[in-house]
C-alpha cells in the first residue's frame, strides 16, 4: 500500500445523500457520529460540501427526481470517490422496489463500492461495512 493510498484511507470524509428515504437510515448514519460509535476514530468526518467528500453515502430509494440529483452530485464530486449504498432501499429498492416512481437501485445509476444491507442497518453494521471498505484492495475499487 503506497503512501497516497494510506493517507486516503486514513482520512475519508463522508457526504450524505438521502434519497426518498423513510428517514430511518439517515438517523442510523448520524448515530455513527455519536459518542457511542464515533467514526472520527478512523479519521472520518461528515462534510457539508460534495467538493470535499471522499465517500458518498446513498440511502433511501432513488426515484425519478432523485436520479437526476444523484447523477449531478456524483459528477460534481472530485475523484477518486467511493460510493456506499446503505439500507435495503439503497441496495435493491427494498419495499419501494415496485413503486411506479422508482428509478432503480443505486448501482444501476452510479458504480457502488460497498453495500450495507438492513432496514435500517444498525450502526454496528455500518461500521463493519466501512471497515470492509477500508480493507478492500485498491484494484478492487470500481474505476470511479
Amino acid at each position, binding site marked *: 500500500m503506497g503512501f497516497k493510498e494510506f*493517507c486516503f484511507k486514513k482520512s475519508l470524509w463522508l457526504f450524505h445523500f438521502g434519497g426518498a428515504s423513510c428517514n430511518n437510515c439517515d438517523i442510523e448514519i448520524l448515530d455513527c457520529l455519536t*459518542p457511542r460509535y464515533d467514526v472520527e*476514530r478512523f479519521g472520518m468526518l461528515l*462534510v457539508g460540501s460534495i467538493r470535499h467528500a*471522499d465517500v458518498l453515502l446513498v440511502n433511501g430509494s432513488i426515484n425519478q427526481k432523485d436520479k437526476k440529483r444523484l447523477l449531478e452530485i456524483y459528477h460534481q464530486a472530485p*475523484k477518486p470517490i467511493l460510493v456506499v449504498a446503505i439500507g435495503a432501499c439503497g441496495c435493491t429498492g427494498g419495499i419501494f422496489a415496485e413503486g411506479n416512481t422508482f428509478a432503480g437501485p443505486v448501482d444501476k445509476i452510479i458504480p457502488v463500492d460497498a453495500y450495507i444491507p438492513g432496514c435500517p442497518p444498525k450502526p454496528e453494521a455500518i461500521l463493519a461495512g466501512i471497515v470492509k471498505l477500508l480493507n478492500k484492495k485498491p484494484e478492487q475499487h470500481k474505476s470511479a
Partner: protein
Amino acid sequence: MLKDLFYYIIYPGFLFVAVSGGILAWFDRKITAWLQFRKGPPFLQPFYDFFKLLLVKETILPAKGSKITFLLAPVFSLTGALLAGLLILLPVLNIKSGFSGDIIVIFYLLTIPSLTYIIGALASGNPLAAVGASREMKLIVSYELTFLLIIAAIILKANMSIKLNEILLVQEDSPFIGSISGVLLFIVAVFTVQAKLGLVPFDMAEAETEITHGFFIEYSGTPYAFIKLAKYSMLFILPVFLCSLFLGGLQFNGLNILWSVLKLLGIVLLLTLIRNTNPRVRIDQAMRFFFVWMNLLVIIAIVLILFGL
C-alpha cells in the same frame, strides 16, 4: 545566506509552523472529542487530511468564475500566514531582533488569510460562497478595530515601542497579564483570536449547517490542502502572538521548553473550550459584541493603563 534560508524554510519558518500547526489542530480535535465523551482522531490525522487533499484528490475548477484568482487565493493566504509566522517567531525565539514597527506589519499580514478567503470565494461564483464571503467581510470589519485597539494598548503599555522584541523585553520579569488592564486586554484578545480563526461562536462565514462550508464550498484537492495548511498555521501563529503580547513570550531552552509548550496548549485549550460550549451567533450579534462590548473593555483597559494599573 544559507542560514537565512534555513530560518525561512525549516526552523522557525515554513516547516516548523506547519508541523506545530498540525499538532495543535489535532489537539483541538482531540479535546473536542473528549468533551463530547468520544475517542477522537489519531495523532497524525491533520497530516493525513493534508496529504490526502494534496496528493490524491482531483482539483475541480469552477466553470463560471475567475479560475486564476480562485487558484491563487489559497497560495496567497498560505504566504500571508507563513510570513506573519516568521516575523513573529524570529523575535520571539530570540533568533533575530526584527525591525522597528514590525508589530504593525504583523497586524497587516495576519489579515491576509481572511481577505484572500473572501477573494477566492467571490471568484468561485457560487452563491453560498458569496454569502460566506459577505459574512466574513462584516466579521473582519467588526473585529479588526478591536484588534488594532488591543495592539495600541499593548504599545502604550510597553512605553510606546512598536518593535515586538522590545515589547518582549519590557515583559521580561512581569508579563502584561499580571495587571488589571492586562487581564481585560487578554480576555478581549482571546475573543478576537477566536473570530480571526473562525471558530464556533464566530464561524458564521463557514457555517457548515446552513451554507455548507461557506467560502470553501467550491474548493477541492490541492487548493483546499493549501487552505487547510493556512488554517493550521494560523492556529499556531495566533496563540504564539497572544503569548508574546501578554504572557512574556516563549523560550526554547532547557526546562523553559516545557513551560512555553504549556502556555501555548493552555491558550489553545481556552479557544477549544469556548468553541465547544457556545452556539453560533448571528452576524449582527457578533458585530454588536465587538463594536460595543469588546471595544468598551479595551477602552477601559487603555484608561487603566494611563493611570498606571
